[in-house]
């Protein structure tokens, strides 16, 4: 008689076309090793046995690995028309085996590989659809803000005020810090070049014009996109996940009115105001550097700024920051609205919102620059 095949925790005793599997030891989950099963399964496939029986008096603790072992033996035996006699197994194990249907579930259809062309095509179609949706949202917001001004949109004053305070007063410290430093840096960098021509005094013009026209609107918009835009996207995406948006829709409140409108209004109102505040702080930063480190006289600095900064420049900055505010709010809200329902979708929405906000702001600024050039502003 050949040596009895065996493995960890089992010995197979073959007799008269039958096999008796003697089980012993503990079969806890951490012992599970599918590779160790292979000899038993090959044996089963090559044999001409009629029945497989079990002996379990030596069996220790039963865990998932015994089930996995028995399950694969059973399905192989079934394929080979070998009888699977579970009478020798402990009752509790037989019980668990009954939870495992003998027919293995149909394997999922293999996923069809997607070609590069198909991927590019579907990306173009998706982004086209996205632009369409954003445009529709912009139109919707413009129409609804008319209704809101006549008091006919379903939004609450309290929400608008909360958004205004959050996007306005709440942002003052960080906007101040960023612009103070940027103003100082511009004055410092500019002075190095201007000093070579003995034109130190024009630092005031440089700081004034740069802050009013470009830096204050851009820096403020970037800060607000990272701070408020991503918050809007995350808030709305979370509401998506908890079905709050569905709850609004069901009772007939449009999320566009109730959620998007107050946010767009708040940011569009607050961004120009923040811009003015930022420009003032930025000029103050430049002023401090000019006075303390470059030894300019305060009166001269102020006179130069007054001279350099004209009303059209200030208006130009205000119009730009209005556009930035509207863009940041609308794109962030849109990203929140189309987010998925899971926790990771919320994170993705927040990231996308701040990135889209910043990139969009810079693109819009470029468009403004080209237009201003063409118009000779």
């Amino acid at each position: 008689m050949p040596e009895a095949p065996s493995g960890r925790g089992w010995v197979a005793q073959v007799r008269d076309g039958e096999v008796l599997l003697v089980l012993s030891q503990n079969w806890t989950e951490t012992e599970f090793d599918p590779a160790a099963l292979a000899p038993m399964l090959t044996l089963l496939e090559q044999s001409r046995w009629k029945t497989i029986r079990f002996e379990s008096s030596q069996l220790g603790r039963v865990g998932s690995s015994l089930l996995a072992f028995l399950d694969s033996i059973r399905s192989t035996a079934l394929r080979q028309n070998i009888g699977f006699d579970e009478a020798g197994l402990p009752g509790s194990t037989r019980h668990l085996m009954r939870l495992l249907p003998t027919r293995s579930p149909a394997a999922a259809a293999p996923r069809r590989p997607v070609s590069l062309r198909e991927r590019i095509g579907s990306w173009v179609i998706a982004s086209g659809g996205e632009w369409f949706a954003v445009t529709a949202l912009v139109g919707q917001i413009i129409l609804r803000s008319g209704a809101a001004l006549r008091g006919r949109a379903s939004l609450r004053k309290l929400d608008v005020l909360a958004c205004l305070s959050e996007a306005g007063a709440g942002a003052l410290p960080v906007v101040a810090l960023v612009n103070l430093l940027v103003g100082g840096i511009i004055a410092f960098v500019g002075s190095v070049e201007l000093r070579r021509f003995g034109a130190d005094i024009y630092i005031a013009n440089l700081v004034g014009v740069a802050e009013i026209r470009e830096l204050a609107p851009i820096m403020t918009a970037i800060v607000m996109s990272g701070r408020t835009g991503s918050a809007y996207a995350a808030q709305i995406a979370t509401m998506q996940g908890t079905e709050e948006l569905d709850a609004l829709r069901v009772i007939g409140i449009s999320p566009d009115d109730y959620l998007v409108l107050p946010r767009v209004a708040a940011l569009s109102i607050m961004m120009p105001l923040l811009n003015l505040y930022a420009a003032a702080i930025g000029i103050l930063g430049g002023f401090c550097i000019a006075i303390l480190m470059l030894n300019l006289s305060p009166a001269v600095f102020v006179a130069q700024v007054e001279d350099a900064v004209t009303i059209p420049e200030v208006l130009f900055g205000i119009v730009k920051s209005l556009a930035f505010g509207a863009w940041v709010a609308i794109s962030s809200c849109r990203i929140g609205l189309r987010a998925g329902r899971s926790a990771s979708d919320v994170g993705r929405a927040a990231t996308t919102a701040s990135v889209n906000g910043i990139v969009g702001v810079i693109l819009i600024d470029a468009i403004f620059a080209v237009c201003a050039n063409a118009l000779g502003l």
Partner: protein
Amino acid sequence: MVAAPVKPKIRVRDLSVSYGTDVIQQGVSFDVRESSIFAVMGASGSGKSTILRAMTGLLRPSAGTVCYGDLDYWSSTDARREQIGRSFGVLFQGGALWSSMTAAENVALPMQMFTKLTAPAIAALVQLKLTMVGLQTGRDGMPSTLSGGMRQRVGLARALALDPEILFLDEPSAGLDPPSSKRFDDLIRDLRDGFGVTVVMVSHELPSLLDICDDAVFLDADRKTATAHGAPATLRDHSSDPVVHAFMTRAIPIAPTVAPTGDPHGRG
């Protein structure tokens, strides 16, 4: 209570739980025998889930002890607590699946983190557990695409991932229709019979309680303590406490107790 001949698997003594100064339950004591199905019963807001949180290490009790075997859980070191916790499997209300992973990945994660099993072994065990809990389809679907019942099953498979010694179930049949709920109860009993796992469940579903629980404790929402111990069927037939009796028979109490004030935390 007759002194049990064997040491209980879990021994809870004078347990008090509170959120800040807001006392939820106090002086709760009970024993859970090994391989039994134990229920923590009570009306909504009675602090059942909070007691479960104190038992699973999620909320430090304000007083009292929870012992697993000879080990006092809350006075153990962090490392020891983690080690005790390794023998727990917890099914949260509604499954609490990790939403960025597929159903199969949810079940695989504990094995990947805490065992040295090879990837094929884990894959095979994941399929085994999902089959065991009766999930035939949707194994590679994200949780958001699964139905409530399926999520609950995946949650149970995840709780079983490490072959736990103690299984904690928070409202296992909440949100399931009666037949599904019955199947889920049968499944829990089969798992207990098969693996010898000790089950502690929080529930207010009478059919489940009467059907599968060997033993129970009743938490009273007004008196804020445990008011009855015993097998659910015994409590139903023999309890003299009107609140317990009303709960177990779904009757309206003869003398209605003063309605508790609104429950701001929505405790279940």
